[in-house]
Protein backbone atom coordinates (compact mmCIF):
# COMPACT_ATOMS: atom_id res chain seq x y z
CA UNK A 1 0.00 0.00 0.00
CA UNK A 2 2.79 2.32 -0.85
CA UNK A 3 0.45 4.78 -2.48
CA UNK A 4 -1.24 5.64 0.79
CA UNK A 5 -0.22 8.97 2.26
CA UNK A 6 1.44 7.35 5.24
CA UNK A 7 4.42 6.16 3.32
CA UNK A 8 6.88 3.81 4.90
CA UNK A 9 10.41 5.11 4.73
CA UNK A 10 12.28 1.89 4.73
CA UNK A 11 11.67 -1.19 2.78
CA UNK A 12 13.57 -3.46 5.09
CA UNK A 13 11.70 -3.58 8.30
CA UNK A 14 13.29 -5.24 11.28
CA UNK A 15 10.35 -5.73 13.58
CA UNK A 16 12.08 -8.16 15.91
CA UNK A 17 15.15 -6.04 16.39
CA UNK A 18 13.11 -2.91 16.70
CA UNK A 19 10.96 -4.54 19.33
CA UNK A 20 14.07 -5.35 21.30
CA UNK A 21 15.48 -1.87 20.99
CA UNK A 22 12.27 -0.14 21.83
CA UNK A 23 11.97 -2.09 25.03
CA UNK A 24 15.04 -0.26 26.30
CA UNK A 25 15.23 2.62 28.72
CA UNK A 26 12.70 5.28 28.09
CA UNK A 27 12.16 8.67 29.53
CA UNK A 28 8.47 7.83 29.38
CA UNK A 29 5.61 9.78 27.92
CA UNK A 30 5.50 13.40 28.85
CA UNK A 31 2.26 14.68 30.22
CA UNK A 32 -0.16 16.19 27.79
CA UNK A 33 -0.16 13.14 25.55
CA UNK A 34 -2.62 10.75 27.11
CA UNK A 35 -1.54 7.16 26.93
CA UNK A 36 -4.12 4.87 25.34
CA UNK A 37 -4.63 3.15 28.66
CA UNK A 38 -6.20 6.37 29.94
CA UNK A 39 -8.51 6.57 26.99
CA UNK A 40 -11.20 4.53 28.68
CA UNK A 41 -11.92 7.49 30.89
CA UNK A 42 -12.80 9.45 27.80
CA UNK A 43 -15.02 6.70 26.40
CA UNK A 44 -17.33 7.20 29.31
CA UNK A 45 -17.57 10.92 28.78
CA UNK A 46 -21.10 11.88 29.86
CA UNK A 47 -21.92 13.78 26.67
CA UNK A 48 -21.30 10.80 24.38
CA UNK A 49 -24.33 8.56 23.90
CA UNK A 50 -23.52 4.86 23.69
CA UNK A 51 -24.81 3.31 20.46
CA UNK A 52 -23.31 -0.14 20.87
CA UNK A 53 -22.27 -1.71 24.13
CA UNK A 54 -20.47 -5.02 24.26
CA UNK A 55 -20.33 -6.36 27.80
CA UNK A 56 -18.24 -9.33 28.81
CA UNK A 57 -18.87 -11.16 25.56
CA UNK A 58 -17.52 -14.70 25.37
CA UNK A 59 -18.03 -16.90 22.33
CA UNK A 60 -17.14 -20.59 22.27
CA UNK A 61 -17.48 -22.85 19.27
CA UNK A 62 -17.76 -26.61 19.54
CA UNK A 63 -15.18 -28.14 17.23
CA UNK A 64 -15.71 -31.88 17.55
CA UNK A 65 -14.77 -32.70 21.14
CA UNK A 66 -12.83 -29.50 21.73
CA UNK A 67 -14.26 -26.11 22.52
CA UNK A 68 -12.61 -23.21 20.79
CA UNK A 69 -12.90 -19.88 22.53
CA UNK A 70 -13.05 -17.19 19.84
CA UNK A 71 -13.88 -14.36 22.23
CA UNK A 72 -12.73 -14.40 25.84
CA UNK A 73 -14.51 -11.52 27.53
CA UNK A 74 -14.78 -8.46 25.31
CA UNK A 75 -16.00 -5.10 26.56
CA UNK A 76 -16.54 -2.17 24.24
CA UNK A 77 -18.54 0.99 24.21
CA UNK A 78 -19.10 2.63 20.86
CA UNK A 79 -20.57 6.10 20.85
CA UNK A 80 -23.26 7.38 18.54
CA UNK A 81 -21.84 9.00 15.44
CA UNK A 82 -18.29 7.73 15.69
CA UNK A 83 -16.26 5.56 13.36
CA UNK A 84 -14.83 2.78 15.48
CA UNK A 85 -12.18 0.43 14.20
CA UNK A 86 -11.43 -3.07 15.44
CA UNK A 87 -8.09 -4.28 14.20
CA UNK A 88 -6.22 -7.52 14.61
CA UNK A 89 -4.51 -10.29 12.73
CA UNK A 90 -6.66 -13.03 11.23
CA UNK A 91 -7.88 -15.40 13.91
CA UNK A 92 -7.87 -12.66 16.57
CA UNK A 93 -11.65 -12.94 16.88
CA UNK A 94 -12.61 -9.64 15.27
CA UNK A 95 -14.90 -11.29 12.71
CA UNK A 96 -16.67 -13.24 15.42
CA UNK A 97 -17.02 -10.05 17.44
CA UNK A 98 -18.66 -8.05 14.66
CA UNK A 99 -20.98 -10.98 13.89
CA UNK A 100 -21.97 -11.03 17.55
CA UNK A 101 -22.98 -7.38 17.34
CA UNK A 102 -25.94 -8.22 15.07
CA UNK A 103 -26.39 -11.68 16.56
CA UNK A 104 -25.39 -13.55 13.40
CA UNK A 105 -23.44 -15.33 16.12
CA UNK A 106 -25.10 -15.55 19.49
CA UNK A 107 -22.60 -14.81 22.29
CA UNK A 108 -22.07 -17.71 24.69
CA UNK A 109 -21.88 -15.23 27.55
CA UNK A 110 -22.26 -11.49 27.93
CA UNK A 111 -24.52 -8.84 26.47
CA UNK A 112 -24.84 -6.87 23.27
CA UNK A 113 -26.81 -3.68 23.72
CA UNK A 114 -27.71 -1.65 20.64
CA UNK A 115 -29.11 1.80 21.34
CA UNK A 116 -30.31 0.63 24.73
CA UNK A 117 -31.81 -2.67 23.54
CA UNK A 118 -30.30 -5.90 24.86
CA UNK A 119 -30.45 -8.21 21.83
CA UNK A 120 -30.60 -11.36 23.96
CA UNK A 121 -34.01 -10.35 25.30
CA UNK A 122 -35.62 -10.24 21.85
CA UNK A 123 -37.74 -12.97 20.25
CA UNK A 124 -36.90 -13.95 16.64
CA UNK A 125 -39.34 -11.44 15.10
CA UNK A 126 -38.08 -8.61 17.30
CA UNK A 127 -34.49 -9.53 16.51
CA UNK A 128 -35.24 -9.33 12.77
CA UNK A 129 -36.79 -5.92 13.33
CA UNK A 130 -33.64 -4.76 15.19
CA UNK A 131 -31.38 -6.10 12.47
CA UNK A 132 -33.09 -3.79 10.00
CA UNK A 133 -31.52 -0.97 11.97
CA UNK A 134 -28.05 -2.51 11.76
CA UNK A 135 -26.61 -2.38 8.25
CA UNK A 136 -23.77 -4.68 7.31
CA UNK A 137 -21.24 -4.76 4.49
CA UNK A 138 -18.97 -7.67 3.68
CA UNK A 139 -15.53 -8.45 2.31
CA UNK A 140 -17.00 -10.39 -0.59
CA UNK A 141 -19.92 -7.98 -1.01
CA UNK A 142 -22.57 -10.75 -0.87
CA UNK A 143 -24.71 -9.26 -3.62
CA UNK A 144 -27.41 -11.36 -5.27
CA UNK A 145 -26.16 -12.27 -8.73
CA UNK A 146 -29.74 -12.68 -9.94
CA UNK A 147 -30.66 -9.07 -9.14
CA UNK A 148 -29.64 -5.83 -10.78
CA UNK A 149 -27.87 -3.08 -8.86
CA UNK A 150 -31.21 -1.38 -8.28
CA UNK A 151 -32.93 -4.58 -7.14
CA UNK A 152 -30.07 -5.45 -4.80
CA UNK A 153 -30.43 -2.10 -3.05
CA UNK A 154 -34.20 -2.58 -3.00
CA UNK A 155 -33.97 -6.03 -1.39
CA UNK A 156 -33.88 -4.99 2.29
CA UNK A 157 -36.86 -2.72 1.65
CA UNK A 158 -38.78 -5.54 -0.04
CA UNK A 159 -37.99 -7.74 2.94
CA UNK A 160 -39.34 -5.05 5.24
CA UNK A 161 -42.57 -4.90 3.22
CA UNK A 162 -42.08 -1.35 1.93
CA UNK A 163 -44.45 -0.55 -0.98
CA UNK A 164 -42.91 -0.40 -4.48
CA UNK A 165 -43.38 3.35 -5.00
CA UNK A 166 -41.76 4.06 -1.66
CA UNK A 167 -38.87 1.70 -2.50
CA UNK A 168 -38.17 3.70 -5.65
CA UNK A 169 -38.12 6.94 -3.65
CA UNK A 170 -35.56 5.48 -1.25
CA UNK A 171 -33.35 3.54 -3.66
CA UNK A 172 -32.76 6.28 -6.22
CA UNK A 173 -31.17 8.80 -3.82
CA UNK A 174 -29.04 6.00 -2.36
CA UNK A 175 -27.72 5.13 -5.82
CA UNK A 176 -26.92 8.81 -6.28
CA UNK A 177 -25.14 8.92 -2.92
CA UNK A 178 -22.85 6.02 -3.78
CA UNK A 179 -22.38 7.25 -7.36
CA UNK A 180 -24.03 4.32 -9.14
CA UNK A 181 -27.14 5.92 -10.62
CA UNK A 182 -25.95 5.17 -14.15
CA UNK A 183 -25.33 1.48 -13.39
CA UNK A 184 -28.72 0.74 -11.88
CA UNK A 185 -29.70 -1.92 -14.42
CA UNK A 186 -26.38 -3.76 -14.46
CA UNK A 187 -25.93 -7.10 -12.76
CA UNK A 188 -23.18 -7.53 -10.14
CA UNK A 189 -21.14 -9.67 -12.54
CA UNK A 190 -20.93 -6.66 -14.87
CA UNK A 191 -19.41 -4.18 -12.42
CA UNK A 192 -16.05 -3.83 -10.64
CA UNK A 193 -15.22 -4.78 -7.06
CA UNK A 194 -15.32 -1.19 -5.87
CA UNK A 195 -18.68 -0.67 -7.53
CA UNK A 196 -19.96 -3.88 -5.94
CA UNK A 197 -18.97 -2.59 -2.52
CA UNK A 198 -20.79 0.66 -3.28
CA UNK A 199 -23.91 -1.39 -4.01
CA UNK A 200 -23.28 -3.21 -0.72
CA UNK A 201 -23.09 0.13 1.10
CA UNK A 202 -26.24 1.48 -0.57
CA UNK A 203 -28.04 -1.76 0.33
CA UNK A 204 -26.86 -1.53 3.93
CA UNK A 205 -28.17 2.04 4.15
CA UNK A 206 -31.58 1.29 2.58
CA UNK A 207 -33.33 0.72 5.89
CA UNK A 208 -31.79 3.88 7.38
CA UNK A 209 -29.80 2.00 10.00
CA UNK A 210 -28.43 3.38 13.26
CA UNK A 211 -25.24 1.38 12.98
CA UNK A 212 -23.22 0.18 10.01
CA UNK A 213 -21.05 -2.90 10.49
CA UNK A 214 -18.20 -3.28 8.06
CA UNK A 215 -16.66 -6.75 7.95
CA UNK A 216 -13.29 -6.34 6.16
CA UNK A 217 -15.14 -4.34 3.51
CA UNK A 218 -11.99 -3.14 1.77
CA UNK A 219 -9.83 -6.24 2.13
CA UNK A 220 -10.64 -7.55 -1.34
CA UNK A 221 -10.02 -4.19 -3.02
CA UNK A 222 -6.91 -2.52 -4.41
CA UNK A 223 -5.43 0.50 -2.54
CA UNK A 224 -6.97 3.07 -4.86
CA UNK A 225 -10.45 1.57 -4.57
CA UNK A 226 -9.95 1.06 -0.83
CA UNK A 227 -9.38 4.79 -0.47
CA UNK A 228 -12.49 5.69 -2.43
CA UNK A 229 -14.63 3.29 -0.40
CA UNK A 230 -13.20 4.67 2.85
CA UNK A 231 -13.90 8.21 1.67
CA UNK A 232 -17.48 7.17 0.96
CA UNK A 233 -17.85 5.65 4.44
CA UNK A 234 -16.48 8.85 5.94
CA UNK A 235 -18.90 10.94 3.89
CA UNK A 236 -21.79 8.77 5.07
CA UNK A 237 -20.64 9.09 8.66
CA UNK A 238 -20.55 12.88 8.38
CA UNK A 239 -23.69 13.36 6.29
CA UNK A 240 -25.93 10.89 8.06
CA UNK A 241 -24.28 10.86 11.48
CA UNK A 242 -24.20 7.09 11.16
CA UNK A 243 -22.22 5.09 13.70
CA UNK A 244 -19.77 2.84 11.86
CA UNK A 245 -17.95 -0.15 13.30
CA UNK A 246 -15.36 -1.55 10.98
CA UNK A 247 -13.08 -4.49 11.40
CA UNK A 248 -9.93 -4.74 9.40
CA UNK A 249 -6.42 -6.12 9.46
CA UNK A 250 -5.14 -3.05 7.64
CA UNK A 251 -3.85 -0.31 9.92
CA UNK A 252 -4.09 2.15 7.01
CA UNK A 253 -7.86 1.77 7.07
CA UNK A 254 -7.93 2.68 10.75
CA UNK A 255 -5.57 5.62 10.20
CA UNK A 256 -7.74 7.02 7.44
CA UNK A 257 -11.26 6.84 8.82
CA UNK A 258 -11.50 5.75 12.43
CA UNK A 259 -11.96 8.04 15.41
CA UNK A 260 -11.17 5.33 17.91
CA UNK A 261 -9.70 1.90 17.60
CA UNK A 262 -9.57 -1.32 19.59
CA UNK A 263 -6.76 -3.77 18.98
CA UNK A 264 -7.64 -7.46 19.29
CA UNK A 265 -5.45 -10.43 19.91
CA UNK A 266 -6.46 -13.98 20.83
CA UNK A 267 -10.09 -13.12 21.55
CA UNK A 268 -9.37 -10.12 23.73
CA UNK A 269 -9.05 -6.38 23.35
CA UNK A 270 -5.45 -5.61 24.27
CA UNK A 271 -5.55 -1.90 23.68
CA UNK A 272 -8.03 0.79 22.73
CA UNK A 273 -8.27 4.51 22.47
CA UNK A 274 -8.12 7.48 20.13
CA UNK A 275 -6.51 6.45 16.86
CA UNK A 276 -3.88 9.18 17.18
CA UNK A 277 -2.82 8.04 20.65
CA UNK A 278 -2.70 4.39 19.73
CA UNK A 279 -0.58 5.25 16.73
CA UNK A 280 1.81 7.54 18.52
CA UNK A 281 2.10 5.52 21.73
CA UNK A 282 1.28 1.90 21.04
CA UNK A 283 1.34 -0.10 24.27
CA UNK A 284 0.91 -3.73 23.26
CA UNK A 285 3.45 -5.60 21.16
CA UNK A 286 0.80 -6.51 18.58
CA UNK A 287 -0.13 -2.84 18.23
CA UNK A 288 3.49 -1.87 17.60
CA UNK A 289 3.69 -4.44 14.84
CA UNK A 290 0.42 -3.30 13.29
CA UNK A 291 1.41 0.36 13.52
CA UNK A 292 4.61 -0.45 11.69
CA UNK A 293 2.51 -1.31 8.65
CA UNK A 294 1.80 2.40 8.42
CA UNK A 295 4.50 4.17 10.39
CA UNK A 296 7.53 2.19 9.45
CA UNK A 297 10.00 2.68 12.26
CA UNK A 298 12.39 -0.17 11.94
CA UNK A 299 15.83 0.73 10.63
CA UNK A 300 17.91 -1.24 8.22
CA UNK A 301 20.27 -3.48 10.15
CA UNK A 302 23.32 -1.77 8.67
CA UNK A 303 22.24 1.67 9.90
CA UNK A 304 21.60 0.33 13.38
CA UNK A 305 25.02 -1.33 13.54
CA UNK A 306 26.80 1.81 12.36
CA UNK A 307 24.93 3.92 14.87
CA UNK A 308 25.75 1.52 17.69
CA UNK A 309 29.42 1.58 16.79
CA UNK A 310 29.43 5.35 17.02
CA UNK A 311 27.36 5.31 20.18
CA UNK A 312 30.18 3.44 21.86
CA UNK A 313 32.20 6.65 21.99
CA UNK A 314 29.70 8.34 24.28
CA UNK A 315 27.08 9.44 21.78
CA UNK A 316 23.51 8.49 22.41
CA UNK A 317 20.84 7.05 20.14
CA UNK A 318 17.53 8.85 20.65
CA UNK A 319 14.07 8.37 19.29
CA UNK A 320 12.24 11.66 19.43
CA UNK A 321 8.48 11.44 18.97
CA UNK A 322 6.70 14.63 18.09
CA UNK A 323 2.97 14.64 18.23
CA UNK A 324 0.24 17.22 18.03
CA UNK A 325 1.54 20.73 18.63
CA UNK A 326 5.15 19.77 19.23
CA UNK A 327 5.37 18.36 15.68
CA UNK A 328 5.83 21.89 14.42
CA UNK A 329 8.67 22.77 16.82
CA UNK A 330 12.24 23.27 15.67
CA UNK A 331 13.47 20.57 18.04
CA UNK A 332 16.71 19.72 16.28
CA UNK A 333 17.76 23.35 15.98
CA UNK A 334 17.21 23.78 19.68
CA UNK A 335 19.30 20.75 20.52
CA UNK A 336 22.13 22.10 18.44
CA UNK A 337 21.95 25.75 19.53
CA UNK A 338 20.98 25.52 23.16
CA UNK A 339 22.85 22.43 24.20
CA UNK A 340 25.68 22.57 21.76
CA UNK A 341 25.07 19.00 20.64
CA UNK A 342 26.02 17.52 17.35
CA UNK A 343 23.02 15.75 15.86
CA UNK A 344 23.17 13.08 13.20
CA UNK A 345 19.70 12.40 11.79
CA UNK A 346 19.36 8.69 11.00
CA UNK A 347 15.69 8.48 10.17
CA UNK A 348 12.74 10.74 10.30
CA UNK A 349 9.27 11.30 9.02
CA UNK A 350 6.26 13.42 9.73
CA UNK A 351 2.80 12.11 8.97
CA UNK A 352 -0.68 13.22 9.63
CA UNK A 353 -2.96 10.86 11.50
CA UNK A 354 -6.59 11.86 11.79
CA UNK A 355 -5.63 15.42 10.86
CA UNK A 356 -2.97 15.75 13.57
CA UNK A 357 0.70 15.87 12.72
CA UNK A 358 2.86 13.12 14.08
CA UNK A 359 6.59 12.79 13.61
CA UNK A 360 9.30 10.42 14.62
CA UNK A 361 13.01 11.13 14.45
CA UNK A 362 15.86 8.78 15.14
CA UNK A 363 19.03 10.72 15.90
CA UNK A 364 22.54 10.08 17.10
CA UNK A 365 23.49 12.85 19.51
CA UNK A 366 26.97 13.62 20.74
CA UNK A 367 28.17 16.21 23.19
CA UNK A 368 28.94 16.41 26.86
CA UNK A 369 27.03 14.04 29.10
CA UNK A 370 25.81 16.98 31.17
CA UNK A 371 24.42 18.81 28.16
CA UNK A 372 22.74 15.69 26.87
CA UNK A 373 20.96 15.10 30.21
CA UNK A 374 19.85 18.72 30.19
CA UNK A 375 18.53 18.35 26.66
CA UNK A 376 16.46 15.29 27.63
CA UNK A 377 14.99 17.12 30.58
CA UNK A 378 14.23 20.16 28.45
CA UNK A 379 12.46 18.22 25.75
CA UNK A 380 10.42 16.27 28.27
CA UNK A 381 9.19 19.60 29.59
CA UNK A 382 8.21 20.68 26.11
CA UNK A 383 5.91 17.64 25.61
CA UNK A 384 8.32 15.99 23.25
CA UNK A 385 8.77 12.31 23.92
CA UNK A 386 12.40 11.31 23.90
CA UNK A 387 13.51 7.76 24.30
CA UNK A 388 17.08 6.57 24.56
CA UNK A 389 17.81 3.40 22.72
CA UNK A 390 20.56 1.46 24.45
CA UNK A 391 23.48 0.22 22.44
CA UNK A 392 23.75 -3.48 22.31
CA UNK A 393 27.08 -5.27 22.89
Amino acid sequence: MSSLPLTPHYRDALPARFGGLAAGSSTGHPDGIPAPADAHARLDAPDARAMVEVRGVVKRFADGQRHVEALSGVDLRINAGEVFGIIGRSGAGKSTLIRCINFLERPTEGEIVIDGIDLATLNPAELREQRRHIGMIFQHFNLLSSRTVYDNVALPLELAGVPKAEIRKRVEPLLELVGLASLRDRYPAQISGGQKQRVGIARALANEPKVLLSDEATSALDPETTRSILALLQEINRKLGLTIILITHQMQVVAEVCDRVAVMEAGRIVESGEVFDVFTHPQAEITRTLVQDVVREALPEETVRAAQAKAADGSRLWRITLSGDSAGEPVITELVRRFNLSINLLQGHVDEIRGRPFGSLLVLASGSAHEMDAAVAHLAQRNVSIEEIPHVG
Partner: protein
Amino acid sequence: MSAELLKLLLDSFWETLIMVGASTGIAALAGIPLGVFLVISDRGSLLQNLALNRSLGALVNALRSTPFIILLVALIPFTRLIVGTSIGTLAAIVPLSIAAIPFVGRLVENALREVDGGLIEAAQAMGATPGQIILKVLIPEALPSIIAGLTITIVSLIGYSAMAGAVGGGGLGDLGIRYGYQRFLPDVMAAVVIVLIALVQVIQFGGDRLARRFNHR
Protein backbone atom coordinates in the same frame (compact mmCIF):
# COMPACT_ATOMS: atom_id res chain seq x y z
CA MET B 1 -44.91 -45.76 -43.92
CA SER B 2 -48.68 -46.04 -44.14
CA ALA B 3 -51.08 -43.33 -43.01
CA GLU B 4 -52.21 -45.71 -40.29
CA LEU B 5 -48.74 -46.04 -38.88
CA LEU B 6 -48.21 -42.31 -39.12
CA LYS B 7 -51.34 -41.73 -37.04
CA LEU B 8 -50.04 -44.29 -34.58
CA LEU B 9 -46.76 -42.43 -34.38
CA LEU B 10 -48.52 -39.11 -33.81
CA ASP B 11 -50.77 -40.57 -31.09
CA SER B 12 -47.77 -42.11 -29.37
CA PHE B 13 -45.96 -38.80 -29.56
CA TRP B 14 -48.86 -37.08 -27.77
CA GLU B 15 -49.01 -39.83 -25.17
CA THR B 16 -45.34 -39.34 -24.47
CA LEU B 17 -45.77 -35.58 -24.20
CA ILE B 18 -48.71 -35.97 -21.81
CA MET B 19 -46.95 -38.52 -19.61
CA VAL B 20 -43.69 -36.61 -19.49
CA GLY B 21 -45.27 -33.15 -19.23
CA ALA B 22 -47.65 -34.08 -16.42
CA SER B 23 -45.11 -36.04 -14.41
CA THR B 24 -42.50 -33.26 -14.80
CA GLY B 25 -45.03 -30.72 -13.56
CA ILE B 26 -45.96 -32.87 -10.56
CA ALA B 27 -42.32 -33.69 -9.85
CA ALA B 28 -41.38 -30.00 -9.92
CA LEU B 29 -44.27 -29.04 -7.65
CA ALA B 30 -43.31 -31.66 -5.08
CA GLY B 31 -39.58 -31.99 -5.76
CA ILE B 32 -38.65 -28.30 -5.40
CA PRO B 33 -40.11 -28.02 -1.90
CA LEU B 34 -38.51 -31.38 -1.10
CA GLY B 35 -35.10 -30.11 -2.22
CA VAL B 36 -35.57 -26.87 -0.29
CA PHE B 37 -36.48 -28.82 2.82
CA LEU B 38 -33.49 -31.15 2.46
CA VAL B 39 -31.24 -28.07 2.48
CA ILE B 40 -32.82 -25.95 5.20
CA SER B 41 -33.36 -28.86 7.61
CA ASP B 42 -29.71 -29.87 7.44
CA ARG B 43 -27.20 -29.18 10.19
CA GLY B 44 -26.53 -25.51 10.78
CA SER B 45 -29.15 -24.33 8.31
CA LEU B 46 -32.23 -22.18 8.66
CA LEU B 47 -34.63 -24.72 10.14
CA GLN B 48 -32.42 -27.52 11.36
CA ASN B 49 -34.33 -30.77 11.92
CA LEU B 50 -31.88 -33.62 11.63
CA ALA B 51 -34.33 -36.46 12.37
CA LEU B 52 -36.69 -35.40 9.59
CA ASN B 53 -33.79 -34.54 7.28
CA ARG B 54 -32.17 -37.96 7.65
CA SER B 55 -35.42 -39.94 7.29
CA LEU B 56 -36.51 -37.97 4.21
CA GLY B 57 -33.03 -38.46 2.77
CA ALA B 58 -33.32 -42.22 3.32
CA LEU B 59 -36.75 -42.31 1.64
CA VAL B 60 -35.38 -40.36 -1.33
CA ASN B 61 -32.49 -42.81 -1.65
CA ALA B 62 -34.81 -45.81 -1.41
CA LEU B 63 -37.07 -44.49 -4.18
CA ARG B 64 -34.12 -43.58 -6.35
CA SER B 65 -32.51 -47.01 -6.01
CA THR B 66 -35.68 -48.92 -6.93
CA PRO B 67 -35.59 -49.86 -10.64
CA PHE B 68 -38.36 -47.99 -12.45
CA ILE B 69 -39.94 -51.10 -13.94
CA ILE B 70 -40.35 -52.53 -10.40
CA LEU B 71 -41.68 -49.23 -9.07
CA LEU B 72 -44.17 -49.19 -11.94
CA VAL B 73 -45.60 -52.57 -10.93
CA ALA B 74 -45.32 -52.07 -7.18
CA LEU B 75 -47.28 -48.84 -7.36
CA ILE B 76 -50.25 -50.39 -9.21
CA PRO B 77 -52.54 -50.45 -6.11
CA PHE B 78 -51.60 -46.86 -5.28
CA THR B 79 -52.20 -45.77 -8.88
CA ARG B 80 -55.62 -47.41 -8.87
CA LEU B 81 -56.44 -45.54 -5.67
CA ILE B 82 -55.56 -42.20 -7.24
CA VAL B 83 -56.57 -42.45 -10.90
CA GLY B 84 -59.21 -45.16 -10.54
CA THR B 85 -57.42 -47.45 -12.98
CA SER B 86 -53.95 -48.90 -13.24
CA ILE B 87 -53.90 -49.06 -17.03
CA GLY B 88 -53.42 -46.30 -19.59
CA THR B 89 -51.54 -43.06 -20.16
CA LEU B 90 -53.02 -41.30 -17.13
CA ALA B 91 -52.18 -44.25 -14.90
CA ALA B 92 -48.58 -44.16 -16.08
CA ILE B 93 -48.24 -40.58 -14.85
CA VAL B 94 -48.44 -41.73 -11.23
CA PRO B 95 -45.35 -43.98 -11.13
CA LEU B 96 -43.44 -41.58 -13.39
CA SER B 97 -44.12 -38.74 -10.96
CA ILE B 98 -43.26 -40.83 -7.93
CA ALA B 99 -39.95 -41.76 -9.52
CA ALA B 100 -39.18 -38.19 -10.58
CA ILE B 101 -39.98 -36.41 -7.29
CA PRO B 102 -36.90 -37.66 -5.38
CA PHE B 103 -34.80 -37.12 -8.50
CA VAL B 104 -35.87 -33.47 -8.73
CA GLY B 105 -35.50 -33.18 -4.96
CA ARG B 106 -31.84 -34.16 -5.08
CA LEU B 107 -31.10 -31.95 -8.09
CA VAL B 108 -32.75 -28.94 -6.41
CA GLU B 109 -30.90 -29.74 -3.18
CA ASN B 110 -27.59 -29.65 -5.06
CA ALA B 111 -28.55 -26.45 -6.85
CA LEU B 112 -29.41 -24.71 -3.58
CA ARG B 113 -26.24 -25.87 -1.85
CA GLU B 114 -24.25 -24.05 -4.49
CA VAL B 115 -25.68 -20.71 -3.36
CA ASP B 116 -23.00 -18.81 -1.45
CA GLY B 117 -23.62 -18.97 2.29
CA GLY B 118 -22.62 -15.31 2.46
CA LEU B 119 -25.85 -14.37 0.68
CA ILE B 120 -27.95 -16.15 3.30
CA GLU B 121 -25.96 -14.41 5.99
CA ALA B 122 -26.44 -11.03 4.31
CA ALA B 123 -30.19 -11.65 4.11
CA GLN B 124 -30.26 -12.65 7.78
CA ALA B 125 -28.39 -9.49 8.65
CA MET B 126 -31.10 -7.54 6.81
CA GLY B 127 -33.75 -9.13 8.98
CA ALA B 128 -35.13 -11.62 6.45
CA THR B 129 -37.42 -14.43 7.66
CA PRO B 130 -36.53 -18.01 6.67
CA GLY B 131 -39.39 -17.94 4.15
CA GLN B 132 -38.06 -14.74 2.59
CA ILE B 133 -34.57 -16.19 2.42
CA ILE B 134 -35.94 -19.20 0.51
CA LEU B 135 -38.14 -17.23 -1.89
CA LYS B 136 -36.03 -14.09 -2.40
CA VAL B 137 -32.50 -15.43 -2.11
CA LEU B 138 -32.09 -19.21 -2.38
CA ILE B 139 -34.47 -20.02 -5.23
CA PRO B 140 -33.73 -16.96 -7.43
CA GLU B 141 -29.99 -17.48 -7.03
CA ALA B 142 -30.26 -21.20 -7.79
CA LEU B 143 -32.78 -20.76 -10.61
CA PRO B 144 -30.38 -21.44 -13.51
CA SER B 145 -29.24 -24.68 -11.85
CA ILE B 146 -32.83 -25.64 -11.03
CA ILE B 147 -33.82 -25.13 -14.68
CA ALA B 148 -30.86 -27.24 -15.79
CA GLY B 149 -31.96 -29.93 -13.30
CA LEU B 150 -35.52 -29.91 -14.61
CA THR B 151 -34.19 -30.29 -18.16
CA ILE B 152 -32.28 -33.39 -17.07
CA THR B 153 -35.45 -34.65 -15.39
CA ILE B 154 -37.53 -34.26 -18.57
CA VAL B 155 -34.97 -36.12 -20.63
CA SER B 156 -34.80 -38.93 -18.05
CA LEU B 157 -38.59 -39.15 -17.94
CA ILE B 158 -38.75 -39.55 -21.71
CA GLY B 159 -36.53 -42.61 -21.25
CA TYR B 160 -38.62 -43.93 -18.34
CA SER B 161 -41.84 -43.40 -20.25
CA ALA B 162 -40.73 -46.08 -22.72
CA MET B 163 -41.38 -48.59 -19.94
CA ALA B 164 -44.89 -47.28 -19.43
CA GLY B 165 -46.03 -49.75 -22.08
CA ALA B 166 -45.89 -52.33 -19.28
CA VAL B 167 -49.04 -50.74 -17.82
CA GLY B 168 -50.59 -49.83 -21.16
CA GLY B 169 -49.42 -46.26 -20.97
CA GLY B 170 -48.59 -46.05 -24.64
CA GLY B 171 -46.12 -43.53 -25.90
CA LEU B 172 -43.25 -43.59 -28.35
CA GLY B 173 -41.15 -46.18 -26.54
CA ASP B 174 -44.08 -48.55 -26.34
CA LEU B 175 -44.76 -48.08 -30.04
CA GLY B 176 -41.16 -48.94 -30.83
CA ILE B 177 -41.31 -52.12 -28.75
CA ARG B 178 -44.67 -53.37 -30.00
CA TYR B 179 -44.38 -52.46 -33.68
CA GLY B 180 -40.71 -51.98 -34.34
CA TYR B 181 -39.46 -54.93 -32.32
CA GLN B 182 -42.29 -57.44 -31.81
CA ARG B 183 -43.77 -57.03 -35.31
CA PHE B 184 -40.36 -56.47 -36.79
CA LEU B 185 -41.07 -53.18 -38.53
CA PRO B 186 -37.64 -51.55 -38.69
CA ASP B 187 -39.01 -48.36 -40.32
CA VAL B 188 -41.33 -47.82 -37.32
CA MET B 189 -38.42 -48.42 -34.98
CA ALA B 190 -36.28 -45.95 -36.90
CA ALA B 191 -39.08 -43.35 -36.94
CA VAL B 192 -39.58 -43.73 -33.18
CA VAL B 193 -35.88 -43.33 -32.45
CA ILE B 194 -35.56 -40.29 -34.73
CA VAL B 195 -38.57 -38.57 -33.15
CA LEU B 196 -37.18 -39.28 -29.68
CA ILE B 197 -33.76 -37.91 -30.60
CA ALA B 198 -35.33 -34.77 -32.05
CA LEU B 199 -37.52 -34.33 -28.97
CA VAL B 200 -34.58 -34.61 -26.58
CA GLN B 201 -32.52 -32.17 -28.67
CA VAL B 202 -35.30 -29.59 -28.63
CA ILE B 203 -35.84 -29.95 -24.90
CA GLN B 204 -32.14 -29.73 -24.08
CA PHE B 205 -31.72 -26.70 -26.32
CA GLY B 206 -34.72 -24.95 -24.80
CA GLY B 207 -33.63 -25.79 -21.26
CA ASP B 208 -30.10 -24.50 -21.84
CA ARG B 209 -31.40 -21.26 -23.29
CA LEU B 210 -33.79 -20.71 -20.44
CA ALA B 211 -31.08 -21.43 -17.86
CA ARG B 212 -28.74 -18.99 -19.57
CA ARG B 213 -31.39 -16.29 -19.58
CA PHE B 214 -31.66 -16.46 -15.82
CA ASN B 215 -27.93 -16.78 -15.24
CA HIS B 216 -26.31 -13.45 -14.46
CA ARG B 217 -23.29 -14.85 -12.69
